[in-house]
């Protein structure tokens, strides 16, 4: 029954506890709406045929409603509307009030990407990892203009407002990958501001968290043996962003998808890039590193050969950090809706 309704109404997969609650109200409301449109329509059509005009100047009876009728006109819709309100508002309060044991994730929208960070350490761009069957509270803000965090399969949405935090929570019910869309108009690439939620089963989640922690611990020479004692430090990609800013990458490369003097970093990693010499290469770690050290070797088509070499200017870890940073700027291909091959913040071995 629910499946049938979902197909008729084109509703996406139901993957959160809120989705189940809200969908039930949805069926109720839509069914009543359709029935009452139908009822009004049929009554009207019946009246048109029953009371056709017989003579041009036909006189009619003077019909006025009794108080009872008018009372019915008011009370009938009011009962339905208030019932919906009670159900709907109860659910609204439910979805606006996160349970105490919810796991926190900080979400920051910016033109045109989503950044996620977990209090215990890892963070990432455009891909949010959460465990299934565990309440997750999202604390949402924005760095520039309004955005809105929307996951159709979870039926949740909350605006990202610069200068304040808003919150919403959900509990994903089945592992899988679900699309995040921005629903508050935020400029040129509003429709490209997509991300995904990867819902992991309990075991996968634990494994993932462990991997994350090991990943950035491996880069620390003074890594303590006990992972749980690790203080919150900047991850490699964040260091990469810092280094990239320091050595001036952003003078020529944007991170918002617009080509500048050089190709944009957004979505660069993993892309099939056509080169000046006609060659088509997949942008991977090797290519990015080569481009930093010997920029002229394979020049992306349509861009001038003006990049200086960074051979000797960047240390090995710095180069790796920049590569890692560029990797976080990967975007899923929105037109096909295909999910990216995996989480953006793969561990660094």
């Amino acid at each position, binding site marked *: 029954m629910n499946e049938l309704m979902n197909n008729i*109404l084109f509703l996406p997969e139901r993957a959160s506890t809120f989705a189940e609650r809200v969908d039930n109200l949805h069926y109720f409301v839509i069914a009543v709406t359709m029935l009452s449109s139908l009822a009004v329509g049929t009554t009207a059509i019946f*009246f048109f045929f029953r009371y056709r005009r017989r003579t041009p100047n036909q006189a009619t009876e003077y*019909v006025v409603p009794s108080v009872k009728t008018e009372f019915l006109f008011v009370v009938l819709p009011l009962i339905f509307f208030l019932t919906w309100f009670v159900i709907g508002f109860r659910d*609204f309060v439910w*979805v606006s009030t996160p349970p105490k044991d919810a796991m926190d994730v900080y979400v920051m929208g910016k033109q045109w990407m989503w950044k996620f960070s977990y209090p215990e350490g890892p963070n990432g761009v455009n891909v949010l990892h959460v465990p299934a069957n565990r309440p997750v509270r999202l604390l949402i803000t924005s760095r520039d203009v309004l955005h809105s965090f929307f996951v159709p399969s979870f039926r949740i949405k909350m605006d990202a407002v610069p200068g304040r935090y*808003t919150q919403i929570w959900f509990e994903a019910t089945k592992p899988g990958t679900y699309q995040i869309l921005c629903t508050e108009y935020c*400029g040129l690439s509003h*429709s490209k501001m997509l991300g995904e939620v990867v819902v992991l089963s309990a075991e996968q989640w634990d494994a993932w968290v462990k991997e994350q922690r090991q990943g950035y611990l491996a880069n620390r020479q003074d890594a303590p043996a006990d992972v749980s004692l690790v203080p919150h430090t900047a991850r490699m990609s964040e260091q990469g962003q810092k280094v990239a800013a320091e050595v001036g990458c952003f003078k020529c490369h944007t991170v918002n998808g617009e080509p500048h003097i050089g190709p944009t970093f957004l979505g660069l990693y993993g892309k099939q890039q056509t080169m000046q010499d006609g060659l088509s290469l997949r942008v991977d770690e090797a290519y990015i590193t080569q481009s930093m050290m010997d920029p002229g070797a394979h020049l992306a088509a349509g861009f001038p050969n003006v990049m200086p070499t960074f051979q000797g200017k960047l240390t090995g870890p710095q180069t790796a950090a920049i590569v890692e940073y560029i990797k976080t700027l990967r975007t899923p291909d929105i037109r096909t809706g295909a999910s990216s091959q995996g989480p953006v913040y793969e561990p660094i071995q």
Partner: protein
Amino acid sequence: MSPSSSIAAEPGAVPVPDEHHDHHPNYLVDGTTLKSWLLTLDHKRIGVMYLIWVLLFFFIGGIYALIVRLELLTPGPTIIDAMTYNRAFTMHGVVMIFLFMIPAIPGAFGNFMLPLMLGAKDVAFPKLNLLSLYLLLTGAFIAIWGMINGGMDTGWTFYTPYSTHTTTTVAPILFGAFIIGFSSIATGLNFIVTTHTMRAPGITWFKMPLFVWAMYATACIQVLATPVLGLVLLLVVGEHLFHFGIFDPALGGDPVLFQHLFWFYSHPAVYIMVLPSFGVMSEVVATFSRKNIFGYRAVAFSSLGIAFVGFFAWGHHMFVSGQSTFNAGVFAVLTMLVGVFTAIKVFNWVGTVYKGAVDFKTPFAYFCGFLYFTVFGGMTGVAFATASLDVPWHDTYFVVAHFHFIMVGATIMAFMASLHYWFPKMFGKMYHEGWGLVSAALIILGFNATFIPQFLLGNAGMPRRYYEYPERFQALNVASTAGASLLAFGFLISAIYLTHALVFGRRAAANPWRSRGYEWMTESPPPTHNFVGPQPTYPEEPHFYVDPKKAEVPDAV
């Protein structure tokens, strides 16, 4: 001879005016110079000029709509780039809302009909009336200048901080809207004063045609809400040009405060657009089913009720903007009340047809479409007001479809219905009934075909204002675009046969619909000062079709 001097007088037996031409020329031919039109103080000529301009603006807005729909035909770029697309949907909204829907029915038909329905010779302030037309045009030209020189890419809601930071030409377009606001205030003020002071002897408050009640409620909203929009527009223009910081979070400002102020106007503005159409439909249903309005006072008071409650429902646009849960609850309940008032109207319209004598003419066809759009669109609005359903639907295509149904659907239906219903009154010509019904069917079908897929797109989760979209949304988008083409085709047919009727149409009788509406108590088209000879008297209510020979026993249901 006064047309209503006798109760038994057949409606439609108004004297044919051709012999009076020398003494009392109709308003269309009384002065033929350009100046006599451009500087006229006659409410009828001003109404006709309004009609011409809003039709032009409707055309411009429609072109933008078609560009948007064509672009959305494929998931990727189709005909234009992202920036052009963002400008196109913004301009579609701005033009349709500020230049078509707000001035359309009050400006064109309100101006023309209100004094006629009140037995007045003109509106209270004819000069202000003319001024409001020119304010509209001034604002429109400033805005259109801005559109040509850069356009605006913020969406018609111009939410801060995006609107204060974008590099597009926000300032002239919003300043144009600011001036249009003055036009709207002037019209509203004029109508309120006219209704209060210009009613002919015999027309008491509860004998006013329901169109007048609806215009009165509309005018109240225009006068009370528009100044707040004016202030907001000025502040956004100031922010954009000088970066005051009132709404800029970087300087301590609060963008949500902007949303509150914006929707304080823009939610009642929805009723500025839709209340006149409720008025038109009350007239149409009474005339074409030859029946008194079932529950006249209920319909009249529910207009005022909508106007009043409409001021306290704005927060339902912000359920997911970070306002408090308590706020959301209060605004949700108040929004439900708007739904109740609208339901009262719908039931009473259907009740009007009961025991009537229905003549299925083009305006009545539009009335049927209107009933359907109002019930379905209105109830989806109530669904939004449950707050929890707003969470998945907010800012998706479901919203787009919802407001196109209730606000645009109802207004378009009423605009087309009044265009046909009052065409003989305004121009003294008859349109072709067959083509009228054909195009009405096309428009209603096209409207459904355009927006029902958009309801489903919203359910599926497609956000509005998307230039590109995931491939799974394509089928519904194609369906919607196909529907939009049908809709455009329907309007094209209307434009052709109405233009044809204007020139070659059969001469209309003074009261071709045999209506008892007060506006039909004069010639068609009316003489310059509306009435020839003594002031008509108004012994009966305006929707009165009882056989005078029968005893008047109200039949209570």
